[in-house]
């Protein structure tokens, strides 16, 4: 039989190598040399020492096996999580932690979604918030202290800016503190921008609830409450991280019933520390639902809350 490449192993190996390199060069190597693979969002900041330590924990404990960090540009996904992910958000991510499986929800927009206290409580006992959750409890991370010197080495390797004060502030902090700090940064570079363009305050003068007493609205409100509010206000509004909603004579820690539209405003606008609602001072921590709920939905929630307070 004539000599062919199948009897010339060296030539064969070279040809095979060249064959696999074509796709490699076109789809991986060449793009790497272009700017489109290294975009950076304006306002994106490198991780702080505490956040980086939290990111290391996120890697060690295998969170990416159950949680993704990319919101796809699909309608329902934007509805569930918020703005779809942008290439420029991941500039400082080494490695990227997009994940491959959503056993739990995407976390790309988790930062600022709940107060820190919620995150701590959820990590300690996920099933207190979602009865069917299969997320492991991470209470044990509270017992593991950070090693500031090690975190400093990591900051150096990544070239992130830090001060000596940042490092000494790590002493006494636990892995759970770090994890919460990291989770609270997720997606904030985008959320902050998005919020700045949306007018979040809405004021109204004593409009009655157009849906007051409607059974349909109460039922709808109940469903919306389970989906959006229960995690903080507890089952049927008994109170948890957010206050109880069942006593119509207390609103923002002060006695005295308030009109329906105050309820509307607080759900629509959210609260921030020191803010004033109907003369009462907010402590903060109630998120704004202006982007996620329509006016009708908010009125349904108000109707539902009123029904919890014993009004029919």
């Amino acid at each position, binding site marked *: 039989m004539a000599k062919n490449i199948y009897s010339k192993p060296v030539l064969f190996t070279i040809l*095979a*190598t060249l064959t*696999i390199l074509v796709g490699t060069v076109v*789809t991986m190597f060449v793009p790497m040399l272009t700017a489109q693979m290294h975009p950076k969002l304006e306002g994106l900041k490198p991780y702080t020492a505490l956040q980086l330590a939290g990111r290391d924990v996120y890697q060690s404990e295998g969170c990416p096996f159950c949680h993704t960090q990319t919101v*796809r540009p699909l309608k329902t996904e934007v509805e569930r999580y918020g703005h779809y992910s942008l290439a420029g*958000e991941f500039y400082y991510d080494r*490695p990227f932690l997009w994940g491959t*499986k959503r056993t739990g929800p995407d976390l790309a927009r988790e930062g600022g979604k709940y107060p820190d206290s919620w995150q701590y409580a959820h990590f300690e006992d996920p099933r207190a918030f979602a009865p069917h959750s299969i*997320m*492991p409890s991470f209470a044990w991370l509270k017992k593991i202290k950070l090693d500031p010197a090690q975190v400093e080495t990591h900051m150096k390797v990544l070239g992130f800016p830090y001060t000596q004060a940042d490092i000494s502030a790590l002493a006494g902090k636990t892995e759970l503190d770090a994890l919460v700090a990291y989770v609270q940064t997720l997606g904030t570079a985008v959320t902050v921008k998005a919020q700045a363009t949306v007018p979040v305050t809405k004021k109204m003068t004593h409009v009655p609830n157009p849906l007051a007493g409607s059974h349909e609205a109460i039922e709808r409100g109940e469903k919306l409450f389970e989906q959006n509010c229960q995690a903080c206000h507890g089952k049927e509004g008994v109170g948890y991280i957010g206050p109880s909603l069942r006593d119509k004579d207390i609103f923002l820690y002060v006695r005295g019933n308030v009109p329906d539209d105050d309820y509307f405003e607080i759900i629509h606008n959210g609260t921030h520390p020191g803010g004033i609602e109907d003369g009462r001072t907010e402590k903060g921590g109630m998120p704004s639902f202006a982007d996620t709920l329509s006016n009708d939905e908010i009125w349904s929630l108000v109707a539902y809350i009123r029904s919890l307070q014993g009004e029919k």
Partner: protein
Amino acid sequence: MSVYKMGDYHYDNQTVRKFIYSSIFWGVLALIAGVWISILFWAPGLNGPGWLTYGRLRSFHVNVMAFGLVLGALIGIFYYITIRLTKRPLLFPKIARFTVYLFNLAIAVGGWGLLMGYTKSLAYNEFEWPASLLIVILWVLMAVVILGTIIKRKEEQMYISLWYIIATVVTLAVIYVVNNLVVPAGLFKSYPVFAGVNGANVEWWYGHNAVGSELTMATLALFYYFLPKSTGLPIYSHRLSIIAFWSLIFAYLWAGAHHLVYTPIPDWIQTVAIAMSIFLIAPSWGSVVNGFYTVREDWGRMRTHYLTKFFILGITFYGIQTVQGPTQALRVVSSLIHYTDWVVGHVHMGAMGWDALVITGAIYYIIPKIYDTEIYSEKIANTHFWLVLTGQIIYSITMWIAGIQEGAMQKAVNPDGTLKYTWDQIVAKDIPYWQFRTLGGVIFVAGMLFFVYNILMTVRKGNALVASKA
């Protein structure tokens, strides 16, 4: 006429055996971890602190499976095939023997590290850098032995299996080295040099082709060698093999970004990957057709030659896998099943249905040959076959249903456009499927234990034979 006598292979045969035993050892550990994490899906209270938490055991399962069981078995079987197809002993037998120890050290360090939480978090490449470094050295030494032996061969023509072995050796070398470019930040911590979207593109170029080389090209090398051996029938078409080989290794390297559909990497990279994924049906089915037409000569061998069914069912699942894969790459399909349990079903049909059947079939062939005896029990081998087949089918089908359900529930909206289901409601619906998955897994593992027992007994029989001859 061969220049070498059987005795010349004695030392190399021992190396092959050591690789096979090592890989079985790691495989059993990884299988146990697999069943356990499947239980954690419906009994999350069993999660413990440290290495007892799901996230660490999950990476242990996958990496020890891919590198401990599969890679270990493949290296040993590559040595075995290379010796036979070049008609000579290994060129550097001492180096080959050394790679056994290097291999076990790498898996021990890497696997232990994952349990300690030391991970690179790059899919299918999670071992921290010291273990990866050992694997690179292992791979280079193995390449020297195998390529050296092929260059100094006593048989003019290289048979198809040697092509696939060479392709595996170079592909895995290139992708593994590139995806392991990291900056160490301590003995068991490192950060990759690639960041963000670029890092994602590099990772899935790696990830897809790790599957493409280890679980596809390498397994095809075994398939093309052991199918004719175990049936006594020659491969149907040499020409088809040539076309399938070159188009497969060409196209695979373009397709990685189908794992990144709808992510922020540039659209054109996704589109090219999707197109190439569809093209991949052709070379993949080249081998499927070649396999079926080989046995078409005499389907009776499915009954008379017990190993035939391992390879034929294996290539059948490979065939289904390579239609399912390209379908998954399509944007509209991806939008439904990406990030769901569907993909887990796809993975395990490949791993349990194709790779495990072909690798265990190959080991059934090799061990008796090395001892110059017969398999301890064909009956046990058949029990093994039917158990792993049943287990795999239960596993894949439950995960496909669960995946479609997850995708559909995540997308479901009320008439007014709001989302219909909370995450908790979606998880609640999954629980029965996850329980069925555990059932499938337990049946599969039971089958694998029959396999291990059968091999151990064959070895015992072989050793007794050797002793009686001495």
